[in-house]
């Protein structure tokens, strides 16, 4: 079989290739949705379909029309960044007709609060976090904290009330006898508005040097380093974790 002087092998392979190509084109026509690629690498119809879904969230502005007292409280609290429906669930139907749907009112321990406040190492430092099984066990969160203004009603008496994880870590380390104030200076306002008055960290190597420098006036069992030669470009806590220096 020779066509226009083209070798037999090539003609046969070309037929095979044409069949494969034809099957691909047919499959494309059968399986690719018609609106695919109109607005990007997806089915354009999907946007219309999503837009037609019933609206389930009302948005917090409409809530304030009836619940203005809670809204006022929330607006001035640490929860000012949250929308009502974050805790109370989708409430569009309730906003439409308040008898048609009762929004969620999470009161049980761990029902809503822990989604944000359970301890996770990747959460930002200073963000209020608790370990659920250790933080006032069996007590519902709303027993002490008003969710619309969650600042604790009583000013914490010790650092461990908020920084329990650090306190426990320190308790099993050689630094257990040190108080937080040994290394940190915290203004009294830190207990009321923690993030507006952040405590400081040691900014000089001499802070650790008070106990660990050669010739320091401290117990003989405390490890010593020569501050001039031991990692001179860094602050101590950039390499050693002061709450658990053995780690």
């Amino acid at each position, binding site marked *: *079989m020779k066509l226009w002087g083209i*070798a*037999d*092998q090539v003609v*046969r*392979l070309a037929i*095979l290739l044409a069949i*494969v190509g034809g099957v*691909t084109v047919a*499959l*494309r026509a059968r*399986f*690719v949705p018609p609106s*695919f*690629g109109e607005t990007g*690498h997806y089915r354009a119809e999907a946007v219309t379909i999503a837009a037609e879904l019933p609206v389930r969230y009302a948005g917090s502005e409409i809530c304030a029309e009836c619940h203005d007292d809670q809204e006022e409280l929330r607006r001035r609290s640490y929860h000012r960044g949250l929308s009502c429906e974050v805790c109370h669930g989708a409430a569009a139907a309730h906003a439409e007709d308040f008898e048609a749907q009762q929004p969620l009112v999470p009161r049980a321990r761990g029902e809503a609060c822990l989604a944000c406040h359970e301890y*996770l*190492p*990747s959460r930002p430092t200073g963000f209020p976090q608790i370990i659920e099984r250790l933080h006032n066990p069996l007590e519902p969160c709303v027993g002490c904290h008003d969710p619309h203004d969650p600042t604790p009603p009583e000013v914490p008496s010790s650092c461990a009330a908020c920084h329990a994880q650090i306190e426990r870590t320190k308790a099993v380390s050689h630094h257990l006898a040190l108080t937080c104030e040994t290394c940190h200076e915290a203004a009294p306002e830190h207990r009321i508005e923690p993030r507006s008055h952040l405590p400081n960290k040691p900014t000089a190597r001499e802070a650790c040097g008070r106990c660990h420098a050669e010739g320091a006036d401290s117990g003989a069992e405390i490890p010593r380093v020569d501050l001039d030669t031991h990692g001179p470009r860094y602050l101590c806590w950039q390499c050693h974790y002061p709450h658990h220096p053995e780690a």
Partner: protein
Amino acid sequence: MAGEHLERLETLHDQISGFIYPNEIELHWGLLVVLYPYITGLVAGAFILASLEKVFKVKEVEPTYRLSLLTALAFLLVAPLPLLAHLGHPERSFEIFLTPHFKSAMAMFGFVYAWYLMLVLLLEIWFEYRADLVRWSQRERGPRKLLHWLITLGSRDLSPEAVAFDQKAVHAITLIGIPSAFLLHGYVGFIFGSVKANPWWSSVLMPIVFLFSAIVSGISLVLIIYYVATLVRRETPDMACLDKLASFLLYALIVDLSLELLDFIHRLYESEESIGILSELIVSKLFISLTIVQIIIGTVGPLLLLTFSRFSQLPPELKRVAYFIAALLVQVGIFSTRWNVVIGGQLFSKSLRGLTVYKPELAGIEGLFTSIGLMILPFVILYVLVKVLPPWPQAAAPTAPPPD
């Protein structure tokens, strides 16, 4: 299920050092993703070896030419399976052909793969075997006759012009095939090298390093298969061919080692912020797989063994065994190269402050047994291919056209 998972996380948790983010404890790419670059490397390497004979006219390696092509095909057919098993939903893989995404390197793999399979490897094998297939089908009876006839696609012209055309076509396809093989495995290196957030992977040298390690692994695989096949067939291996294969293996190994050293020195000299954690990674979690297995057992060992056996006056029997052992060690080394790239790149935290650990599962779709199965499969396919398309010189039908 959730309990088991938590238990597993807990055991991993004890082996974490330093600080890592919670989603970094478990590795997302496991043993199956190690297999993928390993197998594609073998394909590209075996093909490049085959091209030595056709393009660079290295006559000594002719006995392995057809075997290399079939090896490349057998491994290429298995190459996407680890990925399909890892991702789940294999039926969705066809969607990358139906709705191609040109900006996604991963989505383009289907096209790189299809180009290499259909327009390079299968075409070259078809042209190379066509005349023999016609002759075999003339002599045979029953299903074999039908099978061989079907593979010829009915192209039964055995005239000297037609056979000469086949050879020309093979030559042309090999010419296209070399950059295609580079593309196939360079692409795999590119996938890792272009992850700019991962300092262990992100390097422009990655595709080149992958390519040369592919050449090393392909040559050594064909050497192993050729040696074992001659033993099984109770023949004496062609010593000139084995010597040449060993020489090429040695040269490729030297280039590969130099490139890896260059990459290493470059990283050390650049000394970016990640260098601390990467040094820790090398001396702790990767010490055995990198220093001991990849460098000492898999690179320096075979280098010394090949140099010594190639340039000494050893008796051929001993030489062959030495080449075979060196090739096996190279395979172990290249597998750990892939391991160190894929697993190593996920063992350190993006915070650059801690390391996690990887323990492959035994059973399950991502487990050790699946991987072993996937490594055996290409040899089964190769066995079938060798039965259907014998690559041995004796099997080739006489080149003279049959009498009318």
